[in-house]
């Protein structure tokens, strides 16, 4: 198969999912530059494995690769102790149990984006894939490599935690 034809087919099938790819990477990683790097790497990897794509949903296929690339990036930065994953987990737990922090959050009307960023990565990713990409549990299970049952319970717990962070059902600022 001639190379430029293969590239044209790949671009036609996969470039429409570039926004979804960048969105997921942006929520999983810390900044724009990292997200762009991850998306580039993911698309190159996808292109090299394009022969293994047997049709079906291109978006799900690409997002699974993006997610894996982000995972390696994240593991690398965690090894460098730059990433605050442990920190985030503790901060959330602390905030949930600390009356003063809760009061502060309510009065500050924590923004939605900040609240999402406070979720641990595996909670954040299922929320992003479900609410922002509107993917089914089955598709989310494929992308994250978790069984459907885990996706279901993770999403339920993520929503409960998000509600806690946002300070109950009081009115919050959307941004």
């Amino acid at each position, binding site marked *: 198969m001639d190379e430029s034809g293969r590239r044209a087919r790949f671009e036609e099938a996969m470039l429409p999912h570039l926004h979804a790819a960048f969105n997921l990477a942006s929520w999983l990683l810390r900044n724009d530059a990292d997200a*762009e790097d991850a998306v580039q790497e993911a698309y190159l990897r996808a292109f090299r494995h394009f022969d293994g794509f047997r049709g079906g949903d291109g978006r799900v296929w690409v997002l699974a690769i993006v997610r894996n690339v982000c995972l390696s990036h994240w593991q690398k930065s965690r090894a460098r102790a730059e990433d605050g994953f442990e920190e985030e987990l503790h901060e959330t737990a602390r905030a949930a149990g600390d009356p003063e922090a809760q009061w502060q959050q309510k009065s500050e009307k924590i923004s939605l984006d900040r609240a999402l960023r406070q979720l641990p990565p595996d909670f954040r990713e299922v929320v992003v894939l479900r609410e*922002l990409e509107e993917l089914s549990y089955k598709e989310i299970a494929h992308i994250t490599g978790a069984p459907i049952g885990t996706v279901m319970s993770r999403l*339920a717990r993520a929503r409960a935690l998000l509600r806690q962070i946002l300070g109950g059902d009081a009115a919050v600022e959307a941004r």
Partner: protein
Amino acid sequence: MTCAETLRLLSAYLDHELDAAGSLAMASHLDGCPACRRELQALTDLSGLVRGGGGYYRAPPALRRRLQARLAAETAPAKRPFPRGWSDAAGRPLAAVLALALLAFGAARLVLVPQPSERLVQDIIAGHVRSLQVDHLTDIASSDRHAVKPWFAGKLNYSPQVADFDRDGFPLVGGRLDYVRGRPVTALVYRRRQHIINVFVWPSQLDEVGADGAFDGFHLYSFQHAGMTYWLVSDLNEEELKLLAALLQRP
């Protein structure tokens, strides 16, 4: 169905992920239970909040362009109808004669003679044109060679010579990685008044310095120095381009 069971499955119910029997059981429990209905409403509101207010990050146009350039660099050169005889042993003297003939005519706009380096020339021009788009000129924007030179370490397996020629009227703008013939190369960016000059540098191989001249409104100039091949490309005139070339060859 008890309230406890309902609450456990509420999230899945909201997402329409329960099977028919489960959905039916849920619906009928909710029908008679205001407390669980309120919980469902709270979950629905939360979902709406995230969908409406959670930022959806769209890929910037520059990312798409860079990605397409990268994909293009990945693929092997397209097979083009190439005049037979240019590249074989019999054809090279012919090519040289033609080149001399064109030079002899002193045309203001030289035509680049088709040579094995045709793809190289195309990549140089494409790289230059791409770099002129917004946000794509430099990956490291600095006139300090002590910032630019180390930036390439770890990205390339050679370390390019970097110098700023501000005093000579060619300030260093910065550097980036680019691709020529599918391989990553150094691109150093200089400025002369309002003109951007890209200097592509990589370890020399054979057949890499071709006939210089004008192509599509750009001037190209190439040379080899200290084991490296240099290609300069700009809309700047040839005479001044050669000045930069001389500066780059200073020890």
